[in-house]
């Protein structure tokens, strides 16, 4: 007979109750781990997607405002700039309005200079430059609509009052957004010619020769268009993606809050279960005290029960969260990226797992604290009277 055995025997006194309480802790820790993974997962997505030498230039008033087309030529000759391209939002839909995905007019001639990390096949890029209505499409969009290379697809403009038919000439991969659709800016200009032309660009992308030159180029671009008809804001690609991510911060805070409210609710449930279990055992605690057990060891044994329950729940919950996120990540790598979306990129760090287990341990300890304290203070005579 040992103290650990006494704790284990008491825990398994009502196996179903113990298992259900442990599972409720495990479920809450699973949620906490998943929620705690979100911020780091978003950071990881941003780190992975953003180049440290690409610079986004957009209208100072916001992404939806157009910039004069001449700005492209002005930034091309800045020292340290080795590539310039554009993103002009076409806003086209395929077949019906719900089939919306990011489609941009770009300059085919400088794609490989600005986005060498997008792994576009040389032959696809060559066709993209040669075929005036050629389009490069991300894997997810190809998969979603069942498109294939060589197929013609028509997008109906929602910003521009035109319909354009494209020939898919290749795919965009690497670090690119897998839902992207690119086509030639010249094709858009030709289509708009009969409507008075459209000499504007949505955003300008620059590529610096080295990361050290990025800050200087950003400052130069800002200075170049200061007090002009359309002032710009230049920023690194990381900062640009980060500003998009910032829109999720509020949602993230709500999710975190809900996650911790769940933990709070589980603490109350576990505390209630613990209190019920200890209340049932008051006469037994009185027997232990009558045999000579002091308050300290009794309190420690009761707290060990609830803490152990928390620890097991934490290990189960954190383990399940790790296993499921890892399985999603593997599934994401093996072709389910479109189905899983960003979930396929989430990875739980050992730190988050440790935090989850620590939270579970605290949940168990706190849940058991008051009932155990009251139990350990049991008055032997009063408790024994209940027996007779």
């Amino acid at each position: 007979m040992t103290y650990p055995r006494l704790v284990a025997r008491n825990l398994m006194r009502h196996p179903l109750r113990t298992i259900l309480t442990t599972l409720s802790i495990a479920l809450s820790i699973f949620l906490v781990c998943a929620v705690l993974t979100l911020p780091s997962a978003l950071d990881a997505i941003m780190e992975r997607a953003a180049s440290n030498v690409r610079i986004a230039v957009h209208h100072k008033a916001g992404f939806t405002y157009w910039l004069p087309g001449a700005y492209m030529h002005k930034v091309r000759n800045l020292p340290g700039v080795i590539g310039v391209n554009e993103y002009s939002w076409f806003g086209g839909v395929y077949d019906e309005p719900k089939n919306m995905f990011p489609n941009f007019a770009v300059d085919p001639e400088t794609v490989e200079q600005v986005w060498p990390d997008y792994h576009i096949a040389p032959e696809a890029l060559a066709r993209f430059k040669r075929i005036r209505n050629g389009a490069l499409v991300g894997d997810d969009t190809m998969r979603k609509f069942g498109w294939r290379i060589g197929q013609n697809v028509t997008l109906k403009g929602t910003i521009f009052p035109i319909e354009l038919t494209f020939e898919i000439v290749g795919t965009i991969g690497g670090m690119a957004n897998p839902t992207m659709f690119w086509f030639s800016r010249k094709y858009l200009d030709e289509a708009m010619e009969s409507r008075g032309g459209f000499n504007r660009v949505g955003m300008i992308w620059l590529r610096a020769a080295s990361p050290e030159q990025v800050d200087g180029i950003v400052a130069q671009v800002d200075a170049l268009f200061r007090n002009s008809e359309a002032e710009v804001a230049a920023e690194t690609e990381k900062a640009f993606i980060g500003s998009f991510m910032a829109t999720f911060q509020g949602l993230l805070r709500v999710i975190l809050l809900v996650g911790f409210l769940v933990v709070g609710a589980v603490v109350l449930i576990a505390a209630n279960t613990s209190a019920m279990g200890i209340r049932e055992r008051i006469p037994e605690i009185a027997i232990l005290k009558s045999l000579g057990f002091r308050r300290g060891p009794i309190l420690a044994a009761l707290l060990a029960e609830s803490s152990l329950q928390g620890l097991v729940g934490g290990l189960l919950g954190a383990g399940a969260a790790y296993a499921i996120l890892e399985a999603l990540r593997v599934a994401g790598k093996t072709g389910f990226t479109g189905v899983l979306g960003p979930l396929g990129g989430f990875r739980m760090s050992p730190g988050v797992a440790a935090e989850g287990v620590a939270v579970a341990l605290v949940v168990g300890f706190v849940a058991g604290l008051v009932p155990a304290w009251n139990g350990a203070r049991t008055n032997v005579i009063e408790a024994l009277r209940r027996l007779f």
Partner: protein
Amino acid sequence: MIDVRNVSRLYHRGVDLVHALEHVTLHVPAGRFVALMGPSGSGKSTLLHLVAGLDRPDGGEVVVAGQALSELDEDGLAGWRARHVGLIFQFYNLLPVLTAIENVELPLLLTSLGRGERRERAELALRAVGLAHRAHHRPQQLSGGEQQRVAIARAIVTDPDLLVADEPTGDLDAKSAEDILTLLQELNRAFDKTIVMVTHDPRAERWVDTVVRLDKGVLVDDGGLGRATA
């Protein structure tokens, strides 16, 4: 062995004050087997609890084996009980989640004995009460008499000076009750244990050395034990 000196104990029952014991004085020499008898509410269980160090008097003093119990705080009393007192209850009060031998071993957790030695002593105590063959049974798998034997083994496993028993035969049939009383008598005679037992059972008089009677909290017959020593 036991000196009860002018002890009183009051209880609050609602707004009423109940005199459970009034100025009781008693001396029990070492090695005696004493029965405390009296009608319900006579104060015999209260006296037993005071002698066992489970409760404290409102007046007077209890001295056991030279130790004035009033000098000990709650933890001190717990330690003293672990070393000097073995308790036997009417409803056995074994922990249902432990086997018989684990229940017997429980008080030894409070000693410095190693795991192996604790197990040996528990086996020895179970053999002493004739239940070695039921060592690995849970309380609910044992009869009432067997459970009380396990409780007695638990009470003697630390080799205490004093055994206190509160109605140890109260929940048993006649045959089992006689067996338990015989066992207690053997422990008293063979191992010179001082035993104080509360009982309603008049047949118990055949097994004990002395019968002390209480009524309404007052000692009405000291069984020839006399007053407490100074």
